[in-house]
């Protein structure tokens, strides 16, 4: 298939950036979206140009690195997938595809389609963990009985890969689905209770410090999340934060 690509080009974080049009031809519908981008980059390099910078790593929907905003949606038009799992069969011959980086003040553009998502890491570092003594006397986690339903829900929350699609899709650039998932995965388990108060307070404080917007419950994040993280996680974040503030 032959396609017109409108791609955001930005040479570094200080550059203003602009949309640039490219034509690609003979694209197989069996190619992944990233393979199509590889073809484009090869074409650009052969013409003596600067290839389009974009994030990618595992290319099997696990790492959460690929971060493109395609035709107005993070990870493209298909639901429950990352960009690397998007295939060209989702498009038609002659289509124009608009490709932009994830847009948020807390996700500054590094170059072209690559954004700096280290704000997510700083939120995790603020409290997204449990402190475990690893001096050699570590207790076996299975020695603590855990309700199967709670364990399943915690696992569902823990499947968040921190790709940032929630932020990208949210009209407010809110990170509450991500933070909700990271808080929930511990809030649902007994191991997470010891540091529960500090965890949620510190993670929310860091989230606010990073400049993410405020959730208005549109539900866009839930729809666009490649791992199906539900809005229940945001509700749990809200109630955990309230309880933590009541406790002091």
């Amino acid at each position: 298939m032959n396609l017109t690509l409108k791609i955001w080009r930005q040479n570094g974080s200080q550059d203003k950036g602009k949309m640039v049009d490219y034509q690609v031809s003979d694209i197989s519908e069996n190619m992944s979206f990233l393979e199509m981008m590889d073809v484009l980059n090869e074409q650009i390099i052969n013409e003596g140009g600067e290839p389009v910078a974009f994030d990618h790593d595992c290319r099997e929907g696990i790492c959460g690195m690929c971060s493109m905003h395609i035709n107005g949606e993070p990870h493209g038009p298909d639901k429950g997938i990352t960009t690397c799992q998007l295939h060209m069969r989702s498009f038609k011959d002659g289509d124009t595809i608009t490709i932009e980086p994830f847009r948020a003040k807390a996700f500054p553009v590094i170059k072209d389609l690559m954004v700096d998502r280290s704000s997510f890491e700083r939120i995790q570092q603020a409290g997204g963990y449990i402190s475990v003594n690893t001096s050699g006397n570590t207790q076996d986690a299975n020695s603590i009985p855990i309700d199967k339903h709670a364990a399943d829900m915690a696992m569902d929350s823990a499947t968040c890969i921190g790709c940032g699609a929630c932020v990208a899709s949210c009209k407010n650039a809110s990170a509450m689905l991500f933070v909700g998932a990271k808080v929930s995965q511990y809030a649902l388990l007994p191991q997470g209770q010891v540091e529960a108060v500090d965890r949620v307070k510190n993670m929310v404080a860091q989230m606010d410090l990073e400049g993410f917007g405020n959730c208005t419950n549109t539900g866009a994040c839930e729809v666009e999340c490649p791992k199906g993280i539900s809005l229940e996680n945001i509700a749990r974040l809200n109630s955990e934060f309230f309880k933590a503030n009541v406790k002091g």
Partner: protein
Amino acid sequence: MSGFFNSSIGRKYAMALSAFFLMIFIVQHFAINILSVFSPDAFNEISHFMGTNPLVQFGLQPILLFGVVFHFVMGFILEIRNRNARAVKYAQYNGAANSTWMSRNMIWSGGFILIFLVIHFIDFWFPEINTKFIQGDMSGLLADGEGYRYYEELTHKFAPLWRVALYCVGFIFLSLHLLHGFSSAFQSVGANNKYTRGLKGFGKAYAIIIPLGFIFIALFHHFNH
């Protein structure tokens, strides 16, 4: 708890709590107004009670005004902050693919409701305050002293078609606002559980029935007087 209300989540709670208060008030307002359709006397009696009872006038009314002002001011503040969270806009943003129009445009439906409220206050609230607290007439009686004035004033206001049309548009925006706002308020205070589906259904019914009822009242008085 002061730190709580300075946080993003604390502001969500504050918005939701003021929304709960306003949603309860709307039911009370509707319950009184619908009486005007069935019993002008009952409407007059309750209107006089609400308009002259010190607890309502000097206790509940200031709380209501604070709730209204707070909800609007906080809504606009949050909208500005949220817009600042994305400095560069998308060239293409397909919001319809993942969210409802109502949820994405709460600021617009809220803005139109604010305009409607200003008109509503000019029509009813300011004249009422003028009569009672500036002119000092707390009797609630018509100029000729033949019965209460409330029902007469209501039907008189809905005589012009332009005002009825304006009120209908205002209630449509109220409905659009509530279609997202009702369930959103519960989500904001952390209530998302096995009752959520039922609550969303109830919220949709509330968001349609109450504004539709207000529209009915306006049309009823226009066409019957």
